């Protein structure tokens, strides 16, 4: 038997046990990552597996690659709207917040462990960032459902704070080794990490999107590989130019994930699988690397440092990073509790082990054991209790009903249509109505209705119930109109001030309007009012929310016909002085 044969056998067993343990996770309420880590420890030299593994370089390599894939997948599933909404607090948390956490934890660690301040700060830097893999795994698991904004802040923070922690760690080591003076070069290192990482990531993402949609590969299985190739390329180029590869792959993922993509579902599935594989491999390897007997030696001191980190450093960092933004006390408390550590600190803790020299031993083995302990405590205590804490703080949201089926359509070319899944809420305008009464626009068809475990082939007389999932096939651009059909009743057009409107047929032309009102219009005289209004419809808005000013006249759609076309237009007349008077309202 060759060595590789045994390795393959062991990997197979470990993966199987890892997946099996994930079934236990929900039952025991322990985050699946902790189980992976425990599995690694059990398989290690001091456990039942007895596998000798103490290759920090290899561990660092596996950790880096796995983390890159996890971050990339995280980026793919992060919507741009989420980032736009929360990037300010998230960015502050990811930079300033990490620094605050690192300094407070570092000072405490130096004192508790009795090591030089600089080495204490090194330890603080290593555990300074929250871990994207852990945060994504915990927040996106079925157990916790949070207000969107909080979840978004925490996810974006965790995905973008690794460069800061890496930079602080490398910086501390360099200073401790006497290679770099604290000063301008130090700051430059950070700026180049962030800037180059960001630029490489965005360019890499754009390039990937461009190529994927044009290359027209014969084998659909190659598309996910192509995307992976771009992910690795982006990471490598960013690192080569002195930027943060982690930040780069995350941003590349965001850019790619938010574009219409050929073979989209396949790509997402593939990277989701890769991310899971990475989680298992990374945590098992890191578990292998740990020696429980040595953990016991540092236990009490590491527990003290953990306490400072969780109860002092993280809350202060959150407070100092988010005070310009409006968060409630409960939200701040929760964000403080989600200071989850994971693979990043353990990977970073291998840095001192690799870089330490005989003149500057840096207490590297001690740091590694303490960091490992802190991570296990963080995952076990914070990770396990997150769901309970969110409930206790009253932040838990009812989950949207999960659809029992998922309809997937993979296009191998760019097509002008989409499949959209609408969850019908209680206040949806569609709830309780017959399919034939929904007034769906032309170019939108209900493919199926999923209710509980049932799949209902829709007919005109099928009634839509609250809680149903309605899956529609749409022509491109139909979504705003369909959103209107499935939107909530409360969002009806109550905001428009009551005006007396003259109803006009939508097929009335501009020329006819001019005949009666002598208005100055730029629109071509033969265009109908429906066309004039439709032209003004903005991306996210529905046609019913759009109004067009034509000289002193204001036109808006008054009614849609059963095909979703504008049927009646309301014309109101505004005088100049009236508009001024109404402005404050």
């Amino acid at each position: 038997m060759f060595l590789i044969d045994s390795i393959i056998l062991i990997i197979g067993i470990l993966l199987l046990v890892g997946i099996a343990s994930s079934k236990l996770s929900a039952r025991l309420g322990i985050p699946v990552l902790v189980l992976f880590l425990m599995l690694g420890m059990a398989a290690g030299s001091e456990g039942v597996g007895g596998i000798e593994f103490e290759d920090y370089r290899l561990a660092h390599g596996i950790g880096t690659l796995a983390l890159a894939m996890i971050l990339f997948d995280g980026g793919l599933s992060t919507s741009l709207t989420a980032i736009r909404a929360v990037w300010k607090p998230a960015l502050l948390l990811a930079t300033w917040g990490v620094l605050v956490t690192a300094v407070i934890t570092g000072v405490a660690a130096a004192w508790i462990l009795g090591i030089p301040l600089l080495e204490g700060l090194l330890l603080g830097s290593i555990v300074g960032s929250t871990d994207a893999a852990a945060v994504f795994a915990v927040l996106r698991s079925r157990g916790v459902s949070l207000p969107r904004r909080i979840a978004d802040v925490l996810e974006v923070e965790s995905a973008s704070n690794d460069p800061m922690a890496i930079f602080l760690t490398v910086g501390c080591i360099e200073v401790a080794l006497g290679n770099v003076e604290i000063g301008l070069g130090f700051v430059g290192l950070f700026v180049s990490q962030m800037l180059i990482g960001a630029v490489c990531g965005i360019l890499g993402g754009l390039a990937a999107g461009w190529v994927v949609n044009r290359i027209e590969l014969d084998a659909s299985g190659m598309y996910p590989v192509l995307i992976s190739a771009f992910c690795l390329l982006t990471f490598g180029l960013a690192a080569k130019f002195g930027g943060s590869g982690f930040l780069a792959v995350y941003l590349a993922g965001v850019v790619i994930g938010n574009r219409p993509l050929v073979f989209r579902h396949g790509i997402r599935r593939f990277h989701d699988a890769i991310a899971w594989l990475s989680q298992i491999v990374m945590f098992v390897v890191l578990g292998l690397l740990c020696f429980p007997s040595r953990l016991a030696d540092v236990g009490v001191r590491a527990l003290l440092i953990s306490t400072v980190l969780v109860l002092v450093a993280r809350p202060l960092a959150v407070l100092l990073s988010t005070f310009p933004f409006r968060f409630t006390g409960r939200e701040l408390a929760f964000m403080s509790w989600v200071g989850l550590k994971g693979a990043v600190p353990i990977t970073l803790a291998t840095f001192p082990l690799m870089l330490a020299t005989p003149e500057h031993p840096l207490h590297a083995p001690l740091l590694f054991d303490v960091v490992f302990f802190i991570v296990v405590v963080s995952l076990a205590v914070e990770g396990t209790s997150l769901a309970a804490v969110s409930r206790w703080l009253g932040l838990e949201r009812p989950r949207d009903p999960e659809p029992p089926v998922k309809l997937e359509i993979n296009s191998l070319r760019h097509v002008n249509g989409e499949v959209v899944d609408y969850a019908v809420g209680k206040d949806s305008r569609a709830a309780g109505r017959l399919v034939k009464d929904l007034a769906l626009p032309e170019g939108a068809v209900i493919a199926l209705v999923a209710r509980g475990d049932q799949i209902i082939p829709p007919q005109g007389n099928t009634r839509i119930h609250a809680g149903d999932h309605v899956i529609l096939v749409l022509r491109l651009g139909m979504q705003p109109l369909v959103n209107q059909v499935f939107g909530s009743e409360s969002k009806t057009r109550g905001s428009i001030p009551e005006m007396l409107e003259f109803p006009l047929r939508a097929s009335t032309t501009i020329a006819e309007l001019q005949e009666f009102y002598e208005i100055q219009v730029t629109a071509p005289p033969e265009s109908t009012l429906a066309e004039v209004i439709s032209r003004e419809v903005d991306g996210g808005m529905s046609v019913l929310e759009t109004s067009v000013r034509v000289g002193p006249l204001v036109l808006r759609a008054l009614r849609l016909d059963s095909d979703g076309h504008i049927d009646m237009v309301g014309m109101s007349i505004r005088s100049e002085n009236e508009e001024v008077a109404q402005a404050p309202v």
Partner: protein
Amino acid sequence: MKFADFIRLQAIKVDLVAEDKDSAIRELVAGLVESGDVAEGEQEGIIKAIMKREELGSTGIGRGVAVPHTKHPSVSQLIGTVGVSAEGVDFNSLDGEKVQLFFLLVSPPDRPGDHLRALENISRRLRDDTFCRFLKQAKTAEDVRQLLEEADNNQFGT
């Protein structure tokens, strides 16, 4: 622009007998002929022009009010009249309600600004429920005149 600037008081009809759109408009235009604001020979042309505007969409703007209007070369300035129907007239309004209160406008083609200003004034005043209700209850042309005057002097809510 005030009501007094274009409403012909002699043409006001508070006892419309018409039951359909066409005859209601005929009755209102006839009032303008009686008051001497429209030449008898132009009557049919004006009715035709008003009906043509109705083809674009009913001027029944809901809540029992209609504002039929058009341009016609036979008039030299903006003229208008008010009509009240106790029974109400089916006018194909969007809200399906019968129309009890009419404002009819005819404007010369060369004065588009006046035309729109008058329409704007009417639709703004009619947003006041009290004003509307009082007009519909008017029994005499004098009642209507007083209400219009009060509106012109901003004695109603808006």
